[in-house]
């Protein structure tokens, strides 16, 4: 059995009496791709906010490997090895595509360490590789604000790949994408599999089938079920709570 990359232990948050996430425990193994499924309001995004430090939890703990990162500031969590892609794509709009990736490529985050010019050959190669992987080579000198929606999403994925975190959190990476774009996104994510531990929030079942091994279903802030795609499709509780009587279509 491989090591546990991400441990969420009894995590919860209380927004003035409303428990958006309540006593959620999930363990994700090194190199695993885990999909978080759940209806609107099930607490998927809130769970990601809790793990990545955007929201402070009121109960439970989060570990990256053996490091307790519960309620650390965001940048320290990021340095501990958690990378995050937002639901609404967030990139540096006034920088070029290449510069966006170069910012993610600055390994040492301190100000003084970055008072230097340019990038080494190896670092530049790395950016080139990611440009190829995301299909953005032709746009690398373009201001990022002018990318299409799909390209923006890929750029953000690319920044994550360059950042090279141990654990990648992806919040609906295919939201608003055409079918062709979704397929390409699945390709990029499949390419990450194995090298990174990935936790994906997703609605699109076609996409989930294409990438998922293991699914965790959230419902009203709690874990409802966990298992393979087939297990989840057959699980009566899941059908009732989320999928309706027709199952996964």
């Amino acid at each position, binding site marked *: 059995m491989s090591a546990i990359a991400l441990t969420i232990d009894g995590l919860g948050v209380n927004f003035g009496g409303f428990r958006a996430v309540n006593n959620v425990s999930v363990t994700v193994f090194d190199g695993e791709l885990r999909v978080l499924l759940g209806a609107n309001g099930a607490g998927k995004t809130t769970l990601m906010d809790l793990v*990545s430090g955007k929201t402070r939890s009121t109960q439970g703990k989060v570990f990256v490997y053996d490091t307790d990162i519960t309620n650390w500031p*965001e*940048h320290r969590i*990021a*340095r501990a090895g958690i*990378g*995050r892609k*937002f639901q609404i794509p*967030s*990139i*540096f*709009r*006034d*920088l070029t595509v290449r*510069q*966006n990736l*170069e*910012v*993610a490529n*600055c390994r040492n*985050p*301190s*100000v*003084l360490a*970055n*008072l*230097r*010019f340019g*990038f080494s050959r190896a670092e530049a190669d790395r950016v080139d590789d990611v440009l190829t992987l995301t299909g953005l080579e032709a746009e690398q000198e373009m*201001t990022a*604000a*002018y990318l299409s929606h799909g390209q923006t999403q890929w750029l953000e994925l690319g*920044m994550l790949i360059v*950042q090279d975190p141990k654990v990648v959190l992806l919040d609906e990476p295919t939201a608003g994408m055409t079918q062709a774009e979704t397929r390409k996104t699945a390709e990029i994510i499949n390419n990450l599999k194995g090298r990174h531990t990935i936790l994906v929030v997703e609605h699109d079942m076609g996409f989930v089938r294409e990438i998922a091994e293991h699914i965790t279903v959230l419902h009203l802030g709690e874990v409802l079920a966990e298992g393979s795609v087939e297990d989840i499709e057959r699980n009566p509780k899941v059908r009732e709570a989320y999928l309706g009587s027709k199952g996964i279509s």
Partner: protein
Amino acid sequence: MSIERKFQIAAYVIFISLIFAAPVIGDEFWLNRISKYLVYGMLGVAIALTWGYAGILNLGQGLFFGVGAYMLAMSLKLSSLTSLQQGSDKPVPDFMLWNAEPGAPTELCCINKGSFLWLPFQSQSVGLVLGLVLPVVIAGALGMLVFRKRISGVFVSIITLALVLLVRLVMVDAQPVTNGFNGLTDLGWLTIGGIEFDPYSRATYYLCAACLSLTLIGARLIVETRAGMILQAIRDDHVRARYLGFDVSLYQVFFFVISAGIAGVAGMLYVVVAEFASPTFMDLSFSVTMVVWAAVGGRSSLLGACIGAILINIIEAEVSETEALVEAWKAIIGLIFVLVVLFMPRGLGGAAHDVVRWFVRKPKPGQPFPALPQQSEVL
């Protein structure tokens, strides 16, 4: 190297050559006036650095300028002849004697309650060092408070604005120590390594030109570093930057402090050139005027903001001294601002950039002209 980059380097080289060549064409009076404008150019660079590159609109840059100015002015005041001819063998500022209580000792230590603060300023180097260090320390402390609390956008502007007014009030109120509204006048000359900087000499002009050139080149180099790129990334999306592992507030504080340091040095140079320091440096209108210079010159262009500051002041001087326009000059300056904001939202720097791009990438027939990047609104 891209052609655009060659144009940029050429622009810096031409500008710096021009300011160093200027003494050839003007008399001392004119040179003294241009020296002041070069100092304003430094303020333009300082504003562009925080506003354009960091997205921090500081409406209280006059605070750092004023503090720098007062620090050096205190030293120069003590080396002035008027301070030495007050019936004491040690220098005492004249205004302290005029306002001294009867029987008070005519010594800096105890002529009034606050006068001991002046003691270290008997050495010019103390004034010179503090003129840089104090603005930097204030900016560092303020920045740590504001940026650690994740205050951003218009709230930073309001805090800085309130702070400069507060300090101005204190300076005016502390009349026995600061000479209040009147400020510090009758100053001696700055002397460094045996060179006396007579405000109407070429040496002083070259000092200002050198400081401006160093500021421009230094600021330009620093925004070209990785840290400068990360700073711009933070301006665009500080949340994203945080999740890449950057401690956003440290970057903001770092560049805020550099900007304050530039303003502090500018304040000191202004005192050398204009021979006074006054609370008007901390007027709200002066801090806002700096922002206007940067807006006209182009806040995302360091050289643009610098040229904007110099150009507006030259126009202002010309217009206000033309008899027919004496009454109208403020309206004319206002009109220029309105026109620039309406038709060149990225200022002169942005317009120059577009022109260069247009020459470099003339569209081939049948192909649409490539879209130009727009600056996203900072506020």
